């Protein structure tokens, strides 16, 4: 069998693989996407749909803001609004101490020249969330943030990628990649693919692909979870999280409410199975009822878990390989890569076609864990970031 040839082979058909492929095809490259299951089978459809720049690690902020701009014009990019609503993301301060922590974060951001996160007082919090139980002292808001519908998003990306002429192969797993004479050969369960460039968007499996390229990354597969409730009367407020405990809550257009926030199950990436654990679901339900008494009538309809890649420092790996020419990575999104999808794909396409990008992605290099053993054992991050991470996951 002769190999299929293209300008680029993308491994992984999640949001990041599709977004990279779309941007590269629109820049005139011939692109193959190889997806072992089907487009959006994993994290990109299982996620909570949070489009959040709020609380990002400073290394991701500029990229996430650029991506947010793209979400605001998503219909012109993929031909569907993807259920995107710019309803905002609001992190509640339930105590003065929590509010002080949020204020310190805003001060830090201001010193770096960012003004997208804004402290609001209790009055405005209750204007926005009339159903919130009394006692909150304020909050941190990103007004342009919001949420989208992951299923609609992946449906739109799949259609537009095909329309852009991308050669999409679903149900085929890449099994290896080697480079010789400037050409990568990607072997798969159904023949070989050749291209001068490969892009690794293999999600929770991406460390394996990275290893073929020669980049060793300490990635673990984690299982972020979420639950959805029965349809509730619409409130269509912002996505809500709290500073002092894990929670993320949002209502979709159809009235169902999605509850998540640092819910973790158990992932087995060899079998594609992600199992839930009951205890954190119960705890989140208790928090929701405490904060929003009107949720008393809700029924929990479905719990689920997805498989996602986590890195030791909680930030993704985006950029060229450190080990080989013509290879690029975009993975390790730690439960908050949905928002980054449109923007990251544009950056990868820019890197592939021009060899560089103006987007600041310093600090997201693939080899950063080798250089800093302290980072590799997970001892880092200031308390502000730890607090922020509660909701960061979903």
């Amino acid at each position: 069998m002769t190999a299929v040839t293209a300008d680029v082979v993308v491994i992984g058909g999640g949001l990041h693989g599709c977004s990279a492929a779309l941007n590269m095809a629109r820049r005139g490259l011939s692109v193959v996407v190889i997806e072992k299951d089907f487009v959006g089978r994993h994290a990109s459809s299982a996620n909570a749909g949070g489009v959040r720049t709020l609380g990002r690690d400073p290394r991701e902020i500029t990229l996430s803001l650029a991506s947010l701009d793209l979400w605001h014009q998503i219909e012109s990019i993929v031909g569907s609004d993807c259920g995107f609503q710019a309803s905002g993301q609001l992190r509640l301060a339930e105590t003065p101490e929590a509010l002080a922590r949020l204020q310190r974060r805003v001060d830090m951001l201001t010193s770096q020249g960012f003004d997208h996160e804004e402290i609001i007082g209790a009055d405005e919090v209750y204007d926005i969330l009339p159903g919130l139980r009394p006692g909150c002292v304020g909050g941190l808001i990103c007004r342009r943030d919001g949420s989208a519908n992951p299923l609609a998003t992946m449906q739109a990306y799949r259609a537009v990628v095909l329309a852009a002429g991308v050669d999409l192969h679903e149900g085929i797993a890449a099994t290896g990649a080697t480079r010789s004479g400037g050409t990568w050969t990607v072997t798969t369960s159904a023949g070989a693919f050749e291209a001068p460039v490969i892009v690794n968007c293999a999600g929770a499996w991406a460390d394996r692909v990275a290893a073929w390229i020669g980049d060793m990354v300490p990635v673990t597969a984690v299982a972020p979870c979420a639950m959805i409730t029965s349809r509730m009367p619409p409130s269509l407020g912002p996505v809500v999280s709290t500073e002092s405990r894990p929670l993320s809550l949002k209502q979709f257009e159809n009235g169902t409410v999605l509850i998540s926030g640092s819910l973790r199950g158990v992932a087995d990436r060899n079998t594609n199975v992600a199992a839930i654990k009951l205890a954190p679901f119960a705890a989140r339900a208790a928090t929701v009822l405490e904060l929003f008494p009107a949720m008393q009538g809700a029924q929990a309809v479905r719990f689920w878990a997805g498989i996602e890649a986590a890195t030791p420092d909680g930030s993704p790996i985006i950029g060229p390989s450190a080990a080989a020419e013509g290879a690029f990575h975009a993975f390790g999104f730690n439960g908050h890569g949905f928002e980054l999808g449109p923007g990251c794909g544009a950056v990868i396409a820019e890197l592939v076609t021009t060899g560089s990008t103006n987007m600041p992605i310093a600090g997201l290099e693939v080899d950063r864990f080798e250089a800093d053993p302290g980072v590799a054992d997970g001892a880092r991050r200031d308390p502000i970031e730890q607090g922020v991470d509660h909701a960061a996951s979903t």
Partner: protein
Amino acid sequence: MSGETIDLAVVGAGPAGMAAAATAADLGLDVRLLDEQPWPGGQIHRGVDRLAGPKTTDDPDRAAGRALLHALRQSKADYRPRTCVWHVGPGDDGVFELGLRCDGAVALLRARHVLLATGSVERAMPIPGWTLPGVMTAGAAQSMLKASGLCPEGPIVMAGSGPLLYLCADQLAAVGADIRALLDTTPRGRYFRALRDLPAALRAPAVLRRGLGLLRAPARRGIPVHRHVEAVEAVGDLGVTGVRWRRGGRWDQTDCDHLLLHQGVQPHINLPRLAGCAMEWDDVQHCWKPETDDWGRSTVPGCWVAGDGAGIAGGEAASDFGRLAALGVAADLGALTREEAGRRATSHNRALAPLLAVRPFLDNLYRPDRAFMLPADGTLACRCEEMTAGDIRKAVADGCHAIEAVKQYTRCGMGACQGRMCGSTVPEVIADARGVPVSAVGTYSQRTPVKPLPLTELAKLDTVLNPPSTETAA
């Protein structure tokens, strides 16, 4: 973490579950029998402990039900009615964790072994108009009758195929139901095909005799029976007002207030699927069932399946399958030697032989007809998400081949019922659209909770798991 770990949790108090619980408890195991209904008996013996029940041709069932109930009451099995099992999964230390709710309280139960004896569910029969008020399954009408003696008022039409349709017709007629017509959709060719299996079935003459009696019962009660009906439609705007059907190419119709549909039963596999049991396709019964060995052992260690939930074989066989599983569990836990278990199994297997011999005949005769499982484009396939068969065909045309892909694309199976209603229809439409056998399409995955759980109750589980500290400052 709360509480004790029991030896065996049995889910479902039908014949399989009752027999298993009593047998296992008699062997000294610490057994709990859980069922969401307020009374024991399951579907077939529903209300066995209460109502005198309709006087019908199924009297032998009631005697069997009473015997099972007696054995259960004599045993030390801890029977918990009104208890819904909404989760089963691996706990932390190699035991199973079951999520329960009862009378507004939630609890977690830890068990070394789980026996899932959740019986069967009726297949959907998605004819035009099947979602109109006044249309329900024959089994649902039967449940109401057995549970509370209630029978639909006004003129009734029954349509579909399978022994249960005739049984329900007979039971309803016995309490005075006004059944205007019984539309039997069993295709003509089925009778010839089934004849091949008749000699084997003759090993169970009692079953055949009873079946024949049932087939004749509606006519004896004066119900017009129309055989080989080719198409059925429910008519009405706000509710069903009549039924149209085609037979020999000719349409006919009659008015009615209720249309009771039935297209056979299939194993109720939501809990086995949630537990991770591997499934196999039964081509004759046209359904998925958990893969089990002769004892009912599934592919998940410690998880057992018995009764109709493991493959349709009827109530009488279910109790023997339940006993076999109990013996298997007892042997695994060391309460019984393997030799003793094997010796005791012999009598159950002997009792099962004729009951199983009759299956190929019945299964071939009543093999569901594709015509009644494939809704037309404009007909709803998934009620919760309001998706028509046409929407599903469009998803397939747009490139979704795997059932999970169609689910993500259309949200079918993601609603409150999690595919209980559309779980047989949607794969059928996908298979048809793709031109592959339905077995190649697979089944929906199942998520916790298998039935919607009030958020307030889920929150109480938090208190169960993390009891508020009662320590006072020292």
